[in-house]
């Protein structure tokens, strides 16, 4: 029998305060505990609910998985247990609102859709890094909150009842003969029972962004498995057809998320976030201009290729959760050492070629006196910016990379190291490559940019030298300030 819950009651040392939600699947209560100052939430699944064995298992999954994940994009796990027959789970109660209320005011402006998409993709990247696929991304499971420190907005992912952790036994795999997911948002491979594909989350996010941008669901809200399977061959109407205000770049991104074959989607959540954060750098394909469905022949071909995809999907096992790295090369256009330039280009080539799905951002910093006065607004500033972009493209001309795998960025900042560190952090760069500057008087006084980047960036940093410097150059000089080791890697 279900436990009757009342304010003041104690479960597992937690005192029930008030009910927050009485859903068909579970009850949510705010609770307190003398050892915890943060706001707490207790989740209690309904165990009296007839048919839903899967709900009970879902809650078991959540209890197993939540202690394994952390970070600012998931609620913090506190405790779980059983009270008589009633299982319970206590986690951090998150402030903020889910995307659900936004559905009353659709469509949203493209910039807002992209911002929400980028925040959610960054949250998913963080989750995928922890070897977890969410598998139930939808507006109700994405919460937006402001950071109490600086007011910056971020996405938090909720409800891990359908999630898959690569290092845990999957309690939901092969047990239920119906697809586990939410019908309008579920990825095609997930309909077929694949549960370890991180890019399934990109599909579901694509459906969410489609909905935010057009007010419509791309595949409707099918009731049964047959209806869900239709997304394996049916093509949704193009977003620009439903809302002409949707820019081509956003349509490109959304339709790429909705590709049937996961290999045709963005290679990682970080790469999707990168595109959403840099609309002007999105490589446009025929997706961007699609209006209406494809012609009957194209559609038939698409159906055939979808059939092939289905076979591939059914065979494919355990896609790696890592891979598809974002590489950033920091280029100092002012430096004149050709050998160092070549070495930097060689190292960049070597690193991007080792991962087929990698992407490269070529970044340079335009020094401005101080920030805050919109430097690109004046004509001189604008032309300097454009000149740098042209020089960057020229620098990268000989790299053996397809055009859609490389982007160019001129950052305007007063501090080079700060700009590079910030860029790497906000774009979830996996590896940063930069040249070491020679031992000059300036470096001796100011310290090198690369040593600060190595110390402070939150990614792998490779510092490239032009060949081996002579022993004389590397040896510590007479003054103590020169005794810094030459190798900065």
């Amino acid at each position, binding site marked *: 029998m279900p436990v009757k819950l009342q304010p003041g009651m104690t479960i597992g040392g937690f005192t029930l305060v008030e009910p927050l939600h009485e859903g068909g699947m579970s009850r949510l209560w705010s609770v307190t505990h003398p050892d915890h100052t943060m706001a707490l939430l207790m989740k209690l699944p309904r165990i009296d609910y007839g048919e839903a064995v899967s709900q009970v298992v879902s809650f078991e999954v959540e209890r*197993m998985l939540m*202690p394994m994940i952390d970070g600012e994009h998931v609620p913090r796990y506190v405790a779980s247990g059983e009270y008589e027959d009633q299982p319970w789970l206590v986690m951090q109660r998150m402030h903020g609102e889910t995307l659900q209320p936004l559905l009353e005011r659709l469509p949203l402006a493209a910039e807002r859709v992209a911002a929400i998409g980028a925040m959610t993709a960054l949250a998913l990247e963080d989750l995928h890094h922890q070897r977890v696929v969410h598998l139930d991304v939808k507006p109700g499971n994405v919460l937006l909150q402001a950071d109490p420190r600086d007011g910056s907005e971020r996405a938090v992912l909720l409800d891990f009842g359908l999630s898959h952790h690569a290092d*845990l*036994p999957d*309690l939901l*795999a092969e*047990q239920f003969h119906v697809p586990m997911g939410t019908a309008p948002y579920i990825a095609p491979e997930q309909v077929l029972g694949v549960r370890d594909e991180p890019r399934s989350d990109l599909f579901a996010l694509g459906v969410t962004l489609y909905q935010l941008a057009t007010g419509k669901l791309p595949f409707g809200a099918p009731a049964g498995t047959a209806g869900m399977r239709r997304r394996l061959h049916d093509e949704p109407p193009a977003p620009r057809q439903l809302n002409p205000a949707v820019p081509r770049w956003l349509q490109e991104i959304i339709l790429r998320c909705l590709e049937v074959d996961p290999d045709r989607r963005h290679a990682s959540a970080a790469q999707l976030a990168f595109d959403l954060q840099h609309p002007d750098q999105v490589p446009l394909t025929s997706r961007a201009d699609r209006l209406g469905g494809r012609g009957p022949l194209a559609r038939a071909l698409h159906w055939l290729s979808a059939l092939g995809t289905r076979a591939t999907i059914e065979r494919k096992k355990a896609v790696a959760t890592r891979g598809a790295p974002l590489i950033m090369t920091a280029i100092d256009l002012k430096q004149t050492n050709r050998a160092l330039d070549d070495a930097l280009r060689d190292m960049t080539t070597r690193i991007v070629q080792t991962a087929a799905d990698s992407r490269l951002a070529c970044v340079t910093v335009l020094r401005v006196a101080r920030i805050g006065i919109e430097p690109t607004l004046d004509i001189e500033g604008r032309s300097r910016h454009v000149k740098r972009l042209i020089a960057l493209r020229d620098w990268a001309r000989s790299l053996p990379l397809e055009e859609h795998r490389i982007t160019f960025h001129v950052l305007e900042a007063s501090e080079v190291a700060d700009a590079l560190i910030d860029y790497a952090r906000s774009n979830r760069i996996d590896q940063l490559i930069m040249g070491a500057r020679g031992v000059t008087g300036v470096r001796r006084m100011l310290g090198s940019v690369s040593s600060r980047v190595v110390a402070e960036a939150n990614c792998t940093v490779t510092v490239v030298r032009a060949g081996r410097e002579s022993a004389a150059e590397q040896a510590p000089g007479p003054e103590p300030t020169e005794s810094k080791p030459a190798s900065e890697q």
Partner: protein
Amino acid sequence: MRIGLLADLHANRQATEACLAALARAGCQRWVFLGDLVGYGADPEWTVDCVRAHVERGALAVRGNHDAALGDEAANTVNADIRATARWTRERLDGPQRAFLESMPLMIEDADRLYVHASAWEPDQWAYVSNPLAAKRSLAATTRWLTLCGHVHAPALYYEQGHSVSHFEPRPGVPIPLSSQRRWLAIPGSCGQPRDGNPAAACAWFDTDARQLCFLRVPYDHARSAAAIRAAGLPAAFADRLERGT
């Protein structure tokens, strides 16, 4: 309380020492030995003494087929190399050591756990729990929540999934919370003779408070164990396979 679990030690002193040290570093205070202390390896006296000393201080140990084979030639395998090694082992062990091996029970029930070398349905028939069907049969033969066994040398975790049983290949070093809402069967993997292509010794710990199980792989000086096998004149194949982990 954290319990260290070692199975299929196979008279491999270096592997056993390495696993005991790694488990002690992980905070283990109790020990369970899941059978096959001897066979294949060159240090049966040391291994039996080590386990016996632990048992005298409260550890639990169950009998494996190689331990049983020493006292009962008929139970022995058809493999001539293994038969020869069993004879060699018996001659190396003194009376009390042999008596200790014979005294080990086939199964031990401890709180909500069952320890057994092979299957729970006929522990003296040495069936291999090497697939979900066998795991299902073994789980059906006990009411305990968690079965821990050996005999199969590859680490594995089986769990009830509806009416069937599923298999999971654990990732070393990741503690797995075991839900109390279903039953589990875990094989730590072989300490003294790994066979999954990774020469590192296998073992595991179970934490009775956190209800977590963690599989470990412990690199050890397998060249030394192999050299001991060769020096003792035991079949060279037993030395070679330690270096390949096969």
